[in-house]
């Protein structure tokens, strides 16, 4: 053992020999498990803000919620919801395509998803501008902008990941083996999460 350590430290010519391959003790891929755990902690972050939402709306029990004179654009937000939800299907299509080595389908799916996500974000920013109240307007303003803003930030991150996936897809990088399309699958999982989270935010903030 001692000699192994000396050999590795000294500049013997096998210096570049790498570590032994780790034993794979679970069926799930490391990166996928990693993103799932990351999503778990993201869910808890949303949980903190939903807890605040609960306190501001139920425990503090204001006279009216939303406050007098505030009209939320439910219709536009509803359309936006449809846009985001459909993007979950397009990313799924992209993943299925690459599993069957269909690069054209992959590019089509990824690009559509990206465009749909960007449209969502664009509409939401537009909504912020025209909504008629600000984060400073009472507890309602705080929690409205925090929840939707936190979600918007996640859409933004998701779009970044999709941008990377797009770049690599157009360079012809991915393949049908799982290890060759993790770069689509992982952003895809994240995108589904962003999507489901939006449905919850939408229901909590706009509907109930």
């Amino acid at each position, binding site marked *: *053992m*001692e000699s*192994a*350590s000396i050999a*590795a*430290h000294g500049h013997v010519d096998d210096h*570049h*020999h*790498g*570590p*032994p*391959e*780790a*034993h*794979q*003790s*679970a069926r*799930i*891929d*490391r990166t996928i*498990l*990693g993103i799932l*755990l*990351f999503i*778990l*902690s*993201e869910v*808890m*972050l949303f*949980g*903190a*803000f939903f*807890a*605040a939402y609960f*306190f*501001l709306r139920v*425990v*503090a029990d*204001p006279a009216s919620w939303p*406050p007098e004179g505030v009209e939320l654009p439910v219709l536009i937000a509803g359309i936006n919801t449809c846009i985001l939800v459909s993007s979950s299907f397009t990313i799924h299509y992209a993943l299925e395509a690459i599993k069957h080595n269909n690069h054209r389908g992959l590019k089509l799916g990824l690009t559509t998803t990206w465009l749909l996500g960007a449209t969502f974000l664009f509409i939401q920013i537009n909504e912020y501008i025209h909504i008629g109240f600000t*984060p*400073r307007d*009472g*507890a*309602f*303003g*705080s*929690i409205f*902008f*925090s929840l939707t803003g936190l979600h918007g930030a996640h859409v933004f991150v998701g779009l*970044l990941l999709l*941008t*990377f996936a797009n*770049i*690599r897809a157009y*360079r012809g*990088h991915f393949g049908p083996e799982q290890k060759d399309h993790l770069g689509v699958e992982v952003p895809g999982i994240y995108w589904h999460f962003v999507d489901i989270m939006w449905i919850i935010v939408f229901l909590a903030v706009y509907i109930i």
Partner: protein
Amino acid sequence: MAVAIRQPGWYRGAIGLVLGAAFGFCLVVGLRLLSGLDAFQTEQTGYPQVVVPLITAPFGFLFGFGAFDYWFRWAAGKPTIPEDHSGHGATKWQDYFKFNTDHKVIGTQYVVTTLFFFLVGGLLALLMRAELAQPGTQIVAANTFNGLFSTHAVVMIFLFIIPVFAGLANYVLPLMIGAPDMAFPRLNALSFWLLPIAGLIFLGSFLAPGGSFDAGWTGYAPLSTGAPLGQSFFNIGVQFAGASSIATALNFLVTIITMRAPGMNLWRMPLLVWANLSTSLLVVGATPFVAGAQFMVFFDRILGMNFFNFLEGGDVISYQHIFWFYSHPAVYIMMLPGFGIISEIISTHARKPVFGYRLMALALIGIVVLSYSVWAHHMFVAGMFSWLRVPIMITTMLIAVPTGIKVFSWLGTLFYGKIHTYSTAMLFALAFIITFTVGGISGVMLGMIPIDIHVSDTYFVVAHIHFVLFGGSVFTIFAGIYHWFPKMTGRMYDERLGRIHFWGTLVGTWMTFIPMHWIGMDGMPRRVADYASQYGDWNLLISVSAFVLGAVQLIFLYNMIVSWRFGPKAGPNPWRANSIEWQVSSPPPVFNFDEIPRVVGGPYEYGTPGARHAIMGGEGEGAEVPETKPSTVTVPS
């Protein structure tokens, strides 16, 4: 020079830092001027021109330092450089100051950095004890004192206790489970480098106008939402420290789940691995809540939101609920890894299998689950829902059960064991059991509503937290450092100095923190710079003991530094332990193993002749070794 600037490293890091700060500053000032506001805003809760650069500068530094280089190449669709392992391992001391991806280097970086912050936090504490030695005001004014106890607690919790465990586990855990490294080495390195950043932000708050943050480590709103600029440093620092611990926890979980050596099923994992599995579950699930709470305070302060502003429909108590939903699990984040360390040490030095190994593992999981249900015992007097009090009291009593199981199991392990106390690590482990139990008992007392109403916000709580955190966590940290010092450095520490350190620490801890129970029950409030003269004598004793306790730690530092350089060679397995990290050289080879070991039995089969935990690569390939059965009868060896 030109090359040095393009290469990741300190030059590029410094440039990144400056550019990052400049970017944040120009962004704020530019946007303000564009919208027709004054360039600078200096309300005490504002200062965007300071706060935003405080966020962007660390990112600039990390970009420059090379934390994201690989990911950038990947993102840009470039072919990533085939792994040349150039960022791996350390051959000279400078390698410890690089973005190194070797878990052993990172572990050492963590331990050394956190010990530095332990020293800083300790000095802050001694400053407080100097002030408290006598009634009246001696050396610091009341609001400086508030800053001292806040920074003391924050540095100790977020920069010493939580990360030092991550550091120790970083070093030994991959070795223990027979993995060549952590699952995500670059993320691992990033987690480490976020830490000194958080530390500098916390300490940097002393330079802010209005002084350091001073609303306690709990940062309760609305005290914190109206506090001077320093509080924003706290809000931001917590985000960096929190991101660091979430990333590490995620890394541990993936490593433990997917990278165990063949044959290491769940019931053959050493308890340290179980402990870190449980801790990581707590970190991943709970830490986002403290991030959320600090975001909300930050938004209230900087953006003028109204989460905690009663007049605008905010809810003040909600801060405490969200904060404690993290911070009660956090106390177990600060304790469970220590439980793991103690199990390893007790079993090794009593030469016996851990008594009730499976129950030990299940107790850890039980603590994880229950931890999420007791947060409101910190709020009995806060004016929260009164119906929540009794249920929380019951769950709080319940959580003492798995904790008790662990204590009895250690005793059971010691029972009829062949106890060796030649190692300072074992001394700390034994002392831990007693001291921690005292802290656990005062915890159960505090969990009872009537007692808590009486002693809430008194020195009794200070006594409790220091018995569990100093007598608990810190003792396990010392035990762990002494235990694995030979593995990490390849050298032995000086046992005689270790003993002096041990006895000094033990006596110092008890003399310092036991009297706090009495004065607490007599009603001396915590978090005060001055107090009624009737408590003067006890406080003098406490202060003197605290200085003794502090002085003894210098012996520890001396011992560690000198032995690292000059100690006698340790050999691979000075404690005759079974787990895998002891079967490789000290320090271990760069890539841990030439071949992944094969696990053939439990980790604690001491006293069973011929029992093996693992077969190392190169040990007669193919030699059929019988699977050892877990022993029921134990013969002391």
